[in-house]
């Protein structure tokens, strides 16, 4: 407290409001209000999320009915199929029922945790999604973690040395990767590192036909992951870098940093202990939001690298069109985004005392 009061530049007492949020906020005065507002806050956010989920469920059914294409005719496309066979298929999938009846069936199924049966795969949609969500989460999770670490780290370095060569090259490079089409970058990686250099496999999650277990299996998967993960990281990390950089730049003129320096902290400590934690706040929301989006964004990367995940399943469902599968993936994707958004709101409030106080 001594150093705060004797700040040589401001030459006077620092107002209480400017107390470093990363330090010790005044708990006593805030406590009674926080309990009430937390409930209300979570209630409001949860309500919003619930409404969005209901909309998704409704949209999931009706939006795809507007899509052109008789699914049964698409299934029969180019095959030898009798009219009787098509009628049987329509009956099997309940497509001969009026729309309200189909909707009712969809709703009742949904409440039992069922997403219907896929037309093209002849299997429950839930099973298909569960089957493929693992590889997608592995891929996007790894890519997200790496992008976040890399983006935030480079972002804060760049901001701290704003205008330096490091700043210019790093932001420039990140923006170049950000603007490059994912498909193109992926193919390029594939051509150079798999086709040309033979460093990595050309696709898939495991070597086909090899029954590996344990460490051997993990190593096999890791090798297959390198190129798709690198592609995703290259395309995604720029947004973390840019947000972190902008947010830290904003913090850099804040009074509490002056205070921190006045206390005699080293420049490095000022950055790590005071500026960066505060600058992290805006990125939290972004991280949660993009996590939701990443699952859907995996479509391209999964297709380029033949990754057995959800992305490609969705693509297949769209081209069929396989209504139950489309509905299923749509509901799952949307729910992930909504839930992530909800978490972002909560974590943000947890981290930011200013929001907590208001």
């Amino acid at each position, binding site marked *: 407290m001594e150093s705060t009061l004797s700040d040589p530049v401001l030459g006077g007492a620092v107002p209480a409001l400017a107390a470093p949020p990363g330090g010790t906020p005044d708990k006593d005065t805030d406590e009674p209000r926080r309990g009430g507002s937390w409930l209300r806050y979570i209630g409001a956010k949860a309500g919003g999320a619930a409404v969005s989920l209901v909309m998704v469920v409704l949209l999931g059914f009706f939006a795809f009915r507007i899509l052109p294409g008789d699914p049964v005719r698409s*299934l029969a496309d180019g095959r030898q199929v009798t009219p009787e066979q098509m009628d049987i298929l329509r009956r099997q999938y309940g497509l001969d029922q009026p729309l309200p009846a189909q909707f009712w069936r969809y709703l009742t199924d949904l409440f039992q945790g069922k997403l219907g049966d896929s037309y093209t795969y002849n299997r429950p949609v839930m099973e298909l999604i569960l089957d493929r969500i693992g590889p997608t989460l592995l891929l996007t999770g790894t890519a997200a973690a790496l992008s976040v670490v890399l983006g935030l780290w480079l972002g804060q370095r760049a901001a701290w040395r704003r205008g330096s060569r490091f700043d210019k090259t790093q932001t420039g490079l990140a923006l170049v990767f950000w603007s490059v089409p994912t498909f193109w970058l992926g193919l390029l990686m594939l051509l150079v590192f798999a086709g040309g250099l033979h460093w990595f496999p050309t696709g898939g999650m495991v070597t086909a036909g090899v029954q590996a277990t344990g460490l051997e299996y993990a190593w096999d998967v890791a090798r297959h992951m390198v190129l798709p993960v690198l592609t995703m990281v290259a395309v995604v990390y720029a947004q973390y870098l840019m947000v972190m950089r902008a947010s830290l730049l904003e913090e850099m003129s804040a009074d509490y940093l002056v205070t921190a320096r006045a206390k005699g902290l080293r*420049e490095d400590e000022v950055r790590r202990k005071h500026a960066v934690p505060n600058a992290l706040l805006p990125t939290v929301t972004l991280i949660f939001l993009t996590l939701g989006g990443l699952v859907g964004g995996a479509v391209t990367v999964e297709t380029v690298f033949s990754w057995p995940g959800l992305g490609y399943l969705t693509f297949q469902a769209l081209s069929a069109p396989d209504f139950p599968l489309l509905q299923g993936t749509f509901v799952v994707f949307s729910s992930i985004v909504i839930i992530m958004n909800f978490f972002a709101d909560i974590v943000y409030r947890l981290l930011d005392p200013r929001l907590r106080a208001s």
Partner: protein
Amino acid sequence: MTPTRTAAAPTPPPGNKKPRSKSPTGVRLPAVLAAAVVALAPAVMAVPAATASSAPAGSTLKLALTGDIDSLNPFKAILSSSTGILALQYQSLVAYGPKNNEDIPSMADKWETSTDGKVWTFHLPKDRKWSDGQPITAKDGAWTFKAIQTNDQLKQANGSLLSSVAAVEAKDDETLVITLKAPQAPNPGTQLPIMPEHVWSKVENPATFTNDKDAVGSGPFTVTSYDKAAGVTMKSNPYYWQGKAKIDGITYAPYKNSDAAVQALKTGEVDLISGLTPAQYKALQNQPGITTNAGTGRRYQAIGINPGTQTPDNTPIGDGSPALHDVELRRAIVMAVDNKTLLDKVLQGLGQEATGEVPLAYPQYNWDTKDLPLKYNPQAANELLDKAGYTKGADGIRLDKSGNPLKLRLMGRNTDPTHQQMADYVKPWLKEIGIDVTTVMKSSAQVNDDSTVGNYDLYFTGWGMGPDPDFQLSINTCASRPNADGTGATSENNYCSPEFDALFKRQHEELDQAKRSALVKQGQEMIYNAAVNNVMYYANTLEAYRSDKFQPFVTQPEKGGVITGQNGPWGYYSATPVGMNTGTDEASAGFNPAAVVVPAVVLLALAAGGFVLYRRRSATAGDRE
């Protein structure tokens, strides 16, 4: 002085202590990354080489599986990747031969037809066995037919094959009798895969049985495992009646992207790929160790011309231009399209110019006349239209019979890049004969819907075909027209002619092969002259394989045919390894990775080291200031 300097000033600058305190965030990450890359690169590189040389040479055929697998249950599977795999595992009573797609013995070695053409008797030899060693009997055949007949859920894949069957009976273990509702020429023993009763009758619900592990079959290969990530593995069936295959098995590696599959062929991760684009095909032609094959396709590519769509009770439906009801106009359109140029430019010549709907792959039924009345001739097309009374307006666009400018729509699929390319040629060609064309590319599903109910003027279409032309002809009969809502039967192009219907019935019942072939060709000529379907070309199936590992494969048909996607297992069954692997894979791929990898790693290490040094120096300098 800035606050920063003031704040920094009191901090003691202990020369060598500083960089260390900085290192956690300052230097460690790039250093660790660089170290990791340097450490991992050789290890990562070493693995593919190790797997390549440790695997016994040529013992398995590795294929790129570019399509999706819907199911390996033969009652349910409809996607071509799945049916292709099942065709290796199950046989029909009668097979399509590799030479010419002719009917040859399979599960049955002999068969005969009653004089009225309704009763077909198949004789199954005694000594044939399933892949688990159990005997194959006529009861297996009867069980399979009955399962589909009595259970709607099992009709998905092959239900249509049984629509003409009245009864199936196993007289004894060696004799299967199929009684038909009406006489027919197509052999009812082809196509339907026969399942082992002793396995499937024990399955509680055959419709939901996945059948993707240690399957029992009668073909040259059977599925041992299927996993969406690891692909499909098959092993050779020791009891296959023509003898065990020369390879131990087949591995299907899933590739969702054909460019990746091409790279995999180059690196030796797969041995055989199909479905190449003309550009990929041409690029692979000059690769050492790789042989390309352009097999004659089973599919025709055409422009469908809407002659006026009607339901089976002759109610007009759809929004096709009424002008196209005139056969003369349709014929002029066919004459204005230069099929040869489309084949050369769009397919880079990798196909054959077409005559009728049955491709060259089926020479028995291919209508191969050189004397085509509607061959490319824009001048004759113009004269024809002049004579028919379509006068040109001031803008060069002709007027139809009711005095309106001739404006037509041309529809294609946005999933097929060749459609837009072809449209770019067709539009000016039709302009040349005074027809204004607007082109629109739509989703596949939309094109299916629109074309079924006649919501089009012209559209790009095509059909893949089995060895028997019966189905292809049947979708041109009046009875095949759809209901107004698009349900009901499937019509090729809403063509309807009583003469054609009569001809169709005759060929359907004609048991004399020569006579039937003549009738089928005549049918194609009728469709051609009605100008409802301008068949342009048969695209080749483009394939490539590692000829440094496998000897040439058996193609179907024998001359200029395909290896993959055959009507039968002959291509894969013929796989013969080229002696032992001499470890020349890498060299034969035309690239020595060591030449690039070693300098690259060294450079990377140097760069990383330089970066670390630079960071240390600049940090120290800054702090000393």
